[in-house]
């Protein structure tokens, strides 16, 4: 079965509906499997350009997997992914990525500026020197996340919130059109959360597209304008105003979300 799916979708032409070429990230029939059990099954998603989009779903629903498989960080069984209508390999210059903070070892021997400059490595290649302009870009990125005073700080000395800001600064240094963030608010302090959301809103104001894996249902309506609900399968997708409904959430989370909890959320009544 997996083989048939691969044959049917890999070349794109035979996939049912073609991906929208304007969409910063369009996914068709994405299936990802860890061992026997699928983590994502035949997921379709079309994120609109210029949106602040949240990928929402219960633990183990495949939120991060969707991001990672779209970027080609993990292998997928089948599926077609396009970024601004292009295959991912041709669009890497237009993508900035913020991995989960906990995915790296913060005892690595390096400084804050050095990490931000890693956002320039694709442009710098193996040998191109880090110019004054590159350094200015890194300094500017640190300023936008409120970390200008930490440029030469050892990364091992940062708090969790500061680590997350440095990762966001590195993404800003990539000067991309699409920003993909994996749980950017996980385990950060309130000030950092506000700083990050300000930066993301500024990106949106510049016409950039933002897609974030998000786990805090209470802030979805406040922070985002587009939502993608997933639980292994795609459950619902659309503007927060019309899609982020108690019915859609109940369907996505099954019995795992208490009714009382639903009442506390700033939900739009469908």
């Amino acid at each position, binding site marked *: 079965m997996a083989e048939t799916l691969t044959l049917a979708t890999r070349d794109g032409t035979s996939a049912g509906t073609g991906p929208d070429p304007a969409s910063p990230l369009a996914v068709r029939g994405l299936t990802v499997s860890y061992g026997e059990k699928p983590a994502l099954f035949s997921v379709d998603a079309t994120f609109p350009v210029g949106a602040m989009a949240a990928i929402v779903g219960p633990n183990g629903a495949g939120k991060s997997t969707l991001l*990672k498989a779209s*970027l*080609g*960080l993990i292998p997928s069984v089948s599926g077609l992914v396009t970024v601004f209508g292009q295959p991912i*390999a041709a669009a*890497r210059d237009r*993508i900035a*990525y913020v*991995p989960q903070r906990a*995915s*790296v*070892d913060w*005892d*690595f*021997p*390096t*400084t804050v500026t050095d*990490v931000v400059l*890693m956002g320039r*490595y*694709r442009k*710098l*290649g*193996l040998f191109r020197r880090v110019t004054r302009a590159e350094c200015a870009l890194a300094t500017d990125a640190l300023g936008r996340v409120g970390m200008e005073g930490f440029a030469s700080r*050892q990364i*091992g000395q940062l708090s969790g919130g500061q680590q997350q800001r440095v990762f966001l600064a*590195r993404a800003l240094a*990539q000067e991309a059109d699409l920003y*993909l963030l994996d749980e950017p608010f996980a385990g950060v302090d309130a000030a950092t959360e506000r700083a990050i959301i300000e930066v993301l809103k500024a990106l949106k104001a510049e016409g950039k597209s933002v897609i974030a894996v998000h786990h805090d249902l209470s802030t979805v309506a406040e922070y985002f304008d587009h939502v993608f609900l997933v639980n292994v399968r795609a459950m619902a997708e659309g503007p927060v105003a019309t899609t982020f409904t108690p019915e859609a959430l109940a369907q996505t989370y099954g019995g795992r979300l208490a009714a009382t909890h639903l009442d506390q959320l700033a939900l739009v009544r469908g």
Partner: protein
Amino acid sequence: MSMGADFVQFSLTPILIGILAAIACALPGNFLILRRQALIGDAISHVVLPGIVVAFLVTGTIAAIPMLLGAGAAALVAVALIEAIKRLGGIEPGAAMGVVFTALFAGGVLLLEQSDTSRVHLDVEHALMGNLETLIWFQAEGWGSLADPAALADLPPELLRIAVVALAIAVLTVVFWRPLKLSTFDEGFARAIGLPVSVIGLGLVIAAAVAAVAAFDAVGSIIVIAMFICPPATARLMTNSLAAQVWGSVGFATLSAILGYVLAGYGPLWLGFDSAVSAAGMIAAVSGLILGLACLFGPHRGRVGVAAGG
């Protein structure tokens, strides 16, 4: 013959070979310990032995290329065995690795004892401790021999071999500095910007294997295990900059080789014993001692996740 001539003839080449072998292993070791793969360096140095013995039994020579191919084949067998033990036995990866590498090393020792290797420098003692002390420069008559083509032609071939390998690894480290650094720190981000992370990881392990095979011949497996881990781990405890760590590992590798060689040759005499001890063993012991001092007194101690060597 003066002291200088004695030194050039008997000590210069062993010390140089010791230094180059230590550096060739320490360079990839830096990235292995930061990737929490120190065990791989350990593993490689064990697997090299059966690979080399089988390559010798098949080809009848100890030339570099068959040795390398043999070691590479043994590494593949080891990886397949580890996977099999993990899957079939449901054993955790660390234990599966430990079992496979020690078993393969032991198999190599048995194979070596049963083979007729009297024509070449290949026996259990050399496998463990190398033959550093015998790699002397017969034709040398003093420092002037360094400018004498006839004398230079008589340099032990192990010196050229390890020099080429150490230089190649140093050049590769400089050329691939950014990809190595980024894929070691943040693999996901490295993949996201299009770096071939798996190829870089494989290249690192291959570089470590080449260093191990080249060093194994001259200095034995003890030193290989020690040099993958001790100089980089020591350097990590002394600095918080990756570039400084790598330079530091080269410095500590060099220091261990020189100090170890001198202590092995003269230490026992100073203590009133008659004979010298194994230089390779002493170099490894000195590198461990330096690491111990860094653990106690280094400015950035308590940070490195070094797996215990076996």
